[in-house]
């Protein structure tokens, strides 16, 4: 069967507005999800689950959140790890102080707190853009780093400053084995991705993109910048806050304030630059790339019989990231997602390119 929409006529606007209008895409997505939910937990090793898939899923969620703000609404943030920290420490404190709450409720509350903080630090975006806004969000990063390192209440007065979490229990289903961690994250990330996709196809998403593409025209057709920008900050921080809580509870288990420092903020930005600004799919590509590259660098040379020194590997990693970021910024600002779209376009015409 050719990859094509020929013959798939849409007779209602509802059908035309589906998330995946082409039948083959829907089949592909269904198979992928089935495989992810059933095949992967059966087949994947613990190493693959814990070292690649768990961080990949959480980072993809965080990148999606950042992409809503930067890629869709056009507002830069170089402090998003701070909102991850807010999510993580909020979840930690809620679990500590109200242990009987279900973790799903904790996640939502942690996200809401992160959203509130994100909105607060988004207020400067109403007056400033670009570089100045970047600096303002940097302030969020430093302020939150300082808060969680210095205000001992947040870390329950732990002398080392590091906090550790108990195993998540969902209605008696303990998220303890690698496969369960993976499945739990997969479910959360699937739901949040669907919601992000719906948001960007709805009127709020269009308001964000309008703000990004031409703010004066957006205002003249009645879009309020205050509303568009602050909702973008709020939703974005909500996603990133939930990702932060998951990063702390599922991936790290215990962490210190440095776990959410500015390096993580930059990593999030690199993911959406490489993966694709303004693309949910791109957020996943970017996260996969960032998680997989160090592992590839570790294993491919060894397989080829060229073992690299650890120092060389980390140098190589930085060099590859650096050059790719410059490449994508100059040649393909829409990242891997755009290359994917071009590939699909070609496939749609194949084998008759006219």
């Amino acid at each position, binding site marked *: 069967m050719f990859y094509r929409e020929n013959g798939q006529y849409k007779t*209602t*606007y*509802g059908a035309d*507005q589906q998330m995946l209008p082409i039948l083959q895409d829907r089949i592909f997505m269904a198979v992928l999800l089935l495989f992810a939910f059933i095949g992967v937990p059966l087949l994947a090793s613990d190493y693959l689950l814990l070292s690649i898939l768990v961080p990949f899923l959480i980072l993809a969620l965080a990148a999606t959140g950042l992409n809503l703000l930067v890629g869709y609404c056009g507002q830069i943030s170089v402090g998003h790890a701070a909102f991850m920290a807010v999510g993580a420490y909020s979840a930690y404190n809620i679990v500590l102080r109200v242990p009987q709450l279900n973790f799903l409720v904790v996640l939502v509350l942690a996200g809401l707190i992160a959203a509130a903080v994100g909105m607060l630090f988004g207020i400067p975006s109403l007056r400033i853009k670009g570089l100045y806004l970047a600096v303002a969000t940097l302030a969020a990063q430093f302020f939150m780093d300082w808060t969680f390192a210095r205000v001992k209440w947040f870390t329950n007065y732990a002398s080392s400053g590091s906090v550790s979490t108990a195993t998540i229990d969902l209605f008696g289903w303990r998220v303890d084995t690698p496969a369960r961690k993976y499945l739990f994250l997969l479910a959360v990330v699937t739901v949040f991705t669907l*919601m*992000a996709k*719906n*948001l960007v*196809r*709805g*009127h*709020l*998403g*269009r*308001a964000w*993109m*309008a703000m*990004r*593409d*031409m703010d*004066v*025209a*957006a*205002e*003249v*057709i*009645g*879009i*309020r910048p205050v509303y568009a920008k602050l*909702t973008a900050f709020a*939703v974005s921080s909500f996603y990133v806050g939930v990702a932060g809580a998951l990063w702390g509870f599922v991936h790290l288990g215990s962490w210190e304030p440095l776990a959410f420092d500015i390096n993580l903020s930059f990593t999030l930005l690199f993911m959406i630059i490489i993966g694709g600004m*303004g693309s949910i799919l791109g957020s996943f590509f970017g996260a996969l790339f960032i998680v997989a590259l160090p592992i590839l660098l570790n294993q491919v040379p060894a397989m080829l019989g060229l073992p690299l020194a650890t120092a060389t590997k980390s140098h190589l990693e930085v060099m590859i990231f650096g050059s790719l970021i410059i490449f994508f910024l100059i040649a393909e600002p829409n990242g891997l997602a755009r290359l994917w779209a071009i590939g699909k376009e070609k496939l749609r015409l194949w084998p008759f390119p006219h």
Partner: protein
Amino acid sequence: MSDAQGAGDVILAVEGVTLSFGGVRALNEVSFDVREHEVRSIIGPNGAGKSSMLNVINGVYHPQQGTIRLRMDGALREFHDMDPHEVALSGIARTFQNLALFKGMSVLDNIMTGRNLRMHTNLLLQALRIGPAAREEIEHREAVELIIDFLEIQAYRKTPVGRLPYGLQKRVDLGRALAMEPSVLLLDEPMAGMNVEEKQDMCRFILDVNDQMGTTIVLIEHDMGVVMDISDRVVVLDYGRKIGDGTPEEVRGNQAVIDAYLGVSH
């Protein structure tokens, strides 16, 4: 040509508006009014202050002096420092001299943004896209499809606007404004840079909007043939001052207007 006698009451009045940018007086005590259902043109040499006038009406610029009156609930009301959102709510839409489309979005989505003012489902419903959110999306899509049909751009629905030729982008800009179902439509040089056929199409769209939907049109245009043809009344600006106001015939005979245009390549 629409009929000046068909024009109704004043729907928009500009009174004594002065707007300066530093030392530059872009508008100097300009007053004029716009009547319901008419085609009101604003002409003048480059830099005369025409676009600035629209920006004042839209609430993008706030004049140092003067007021704007808008018809709301049947009465002319005076407004000060309205922001663009409030102006949009009051039923005024606008197209731009230099294309101001949302480049990263498709034709359909660009025009859909014109419906944003009328879409109210909350964030959570949109994220879940259930019930009211899905219905609202379809309902407004139907309204937008009527505009797409009217502007004859069905073939480009899903095309990113940036890929369209200039003339079609101008149509999408008009479509986005029409999606607001405005009572007054401000058009800033909708035919600039077009060839003869494209201009004819655009003229036809403007007149159809005026006739069929009863929309009041405020038109900035440099092509005097077009202006004299389709306007009911014309305002002439020069160096920020109003130097003429009246029917096309009156304006054409006005000595100050003739002088202003002498030596200017129009």
